[in-house]
């Protein structure tokens, strides 16, 4: 708490203070953990809408005739195949195939792209991208400190935003991006999110952040839209089966460990390709699984998994776990030795000294109705 002065704040910090938020250190940023209640905010996103300040995330713009080829080289996916106006989830890995970050690549034109990456990996990703840009005709622009990013998520999110913009939001598919007007200012509307719900992430210049935030809160209040903090963001993304860097992903995790073979395109050349090609045929030693428990006692991050109630040697470890607010029972993601990781297997989680059975299930735990 004494380091609060050293933490970075977003252009919306004073708004959060005025709304009575409790704060937490999130990747070096002082971010709102909750405004009123974790459960109420979680439920609002599932049933109506929630608005999140995610301005701590890193935004990098890329422009130039070599931008597409550069991103193909830098990432595990093929950015040059992304259609104009669309987006793709991807990973940046090191030479050993370890994950530096997970990110989303958005494409505006043939020669112009945006990457949104995790706040905690901002410097690592920026350094790796700059290093990999050598020899390509591309300009890299770290726009993080100039922009605020506001996520509006939930079944009523689009309806609320439509009252505030003429941008053709209905025509934008999931994983699309559009440059349009929002209250007289330029905004990027990205139909992406981290909650398992429909919605948009709005990128606006810092000077428009407060007006944008207030306009959304005001327009959405009649349908139950409320500001939502990081506590519920974590339970929402867990229910949606989305990984968090630092929990499910890290430098010692390969895309194959994490179940992301589908985002790795081994038919193109990129940094880390040779290491990943070598691993591609093998069954990874461990894999990321989903676990479902009974009762209300959650198995949480770092708790160990065992083959039986009495066995001595751990076979895995929980990476994220909580009592699912939507489902009402404990859910978790975990890494487990692959030989023990078959769907339907019962394993035992050590919950602070007592073993609880959990069944290996599949992701996501929660899927929204279409």
């Amino acid at each position: 708490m004494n380091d609060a002065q050293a933490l970075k704040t977003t252009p919306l910090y004073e708004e959060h203070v005025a709304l009575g938020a409790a704060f937490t250190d999130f990747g070096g940023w002082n971010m709102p953990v909750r405004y009123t209640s974790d459960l109420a905010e979680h439920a609002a996103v599932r049933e109506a809408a929630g608005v999140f300040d995610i301005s701590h995330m890193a935004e990098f713009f890329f422009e130039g005739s070599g931008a597409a080829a550069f991103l193909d080289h830098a990432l595990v996916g093929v950015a040059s195949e992304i259609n104009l106006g669309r987006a793709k989830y991807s990973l940046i890995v090191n030479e050993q195939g370890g994950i530096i970050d997970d990110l989303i690549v958005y494409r505006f034109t043939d020669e112009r792209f945006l990457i949104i990456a995790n706040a905690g990996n901002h410097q690592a990703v920026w350094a790796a991208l700059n290093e990999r840009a050598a020899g390509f005709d591309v300009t890299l622009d770290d726009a993080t400190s100039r922009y605020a990013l506001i996520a509006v998520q939930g079944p009523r999110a689009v309806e609320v935003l439509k009252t505030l913009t003429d941008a053709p939001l209905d025509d934008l598919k999931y994983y699309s991006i559009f440059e349009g007007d929002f209250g007289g200012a330029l905004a990027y509307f990205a139909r992406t999110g981290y909650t398992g719900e429909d919605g948009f992430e709005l990128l606006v210049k810092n000077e428009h952040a407060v007006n944008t935030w207030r306009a959304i809160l005001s327009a959405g209040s009649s349908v139950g839209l409320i500001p939502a903090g990081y506590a519920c963001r974590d339970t929402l993304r867990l229910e949606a089966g989305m990984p968090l860097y630092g929990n499910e992903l890290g430098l010692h995790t390969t895309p194959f460990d994490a179940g992301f073979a589908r985002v790795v395109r081994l038919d193109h050349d990129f940094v880390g390709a040779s290491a990943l090609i070598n691993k591609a045929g093998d069954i990874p030693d461990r894999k990321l699984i989903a676990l479902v428990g009974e009762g209300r006692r959650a198995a949480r991050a770092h708790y160990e998994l065992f083959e039986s109630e009495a066995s001595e040697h751990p076979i895995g470890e929980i990476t994220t776990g909580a009592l699912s607010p939507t489902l009402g029972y404990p859910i978790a993601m975990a890494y487990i030795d692959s030989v023990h990781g078959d769907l339907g297997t019962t394993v035992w989680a050590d919950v602070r000294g007592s073993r609880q059975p959990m069944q290996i299930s599949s992701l996501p735990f929660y899927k929204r109705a279409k």
Partner: protein
Amino acid sequence: MSIREGLFYTKEHEWLAIDGDVATVGITEYAAEKLGDVVYVDLPKVGTQTTYMKICGEIESTKSVGELYAPVDGEVVAVNDSVASNPELINHDAFGAGWLIKIRFTELPTLLSPDEYAALTNEG
């Protein structure tokens, strides 16, 4: 956030209401706010012997786990069953309906006054 007069407190953010040789024990509003929404409580059974500052229960929110430290040596004589089925009582009424256990104690240790507890939480 409020601190209630007429109660004793511990540095582990418990409150005690003393009636004769029985202490009613709960966690403070401050602790409940720090935890977030409580979704599960694990409390000792009636008859359990408690030892001062030994963990005797758990209070879980969606985000974290809080431990209940026994604020006195003694024996559990009552458990708040409604809190087990409605853990949100702890958030709604930490000093009232959200009480956790009653302990018959042999002697009272040194406890914090409301002012001392307020100073501890910097809310004085």
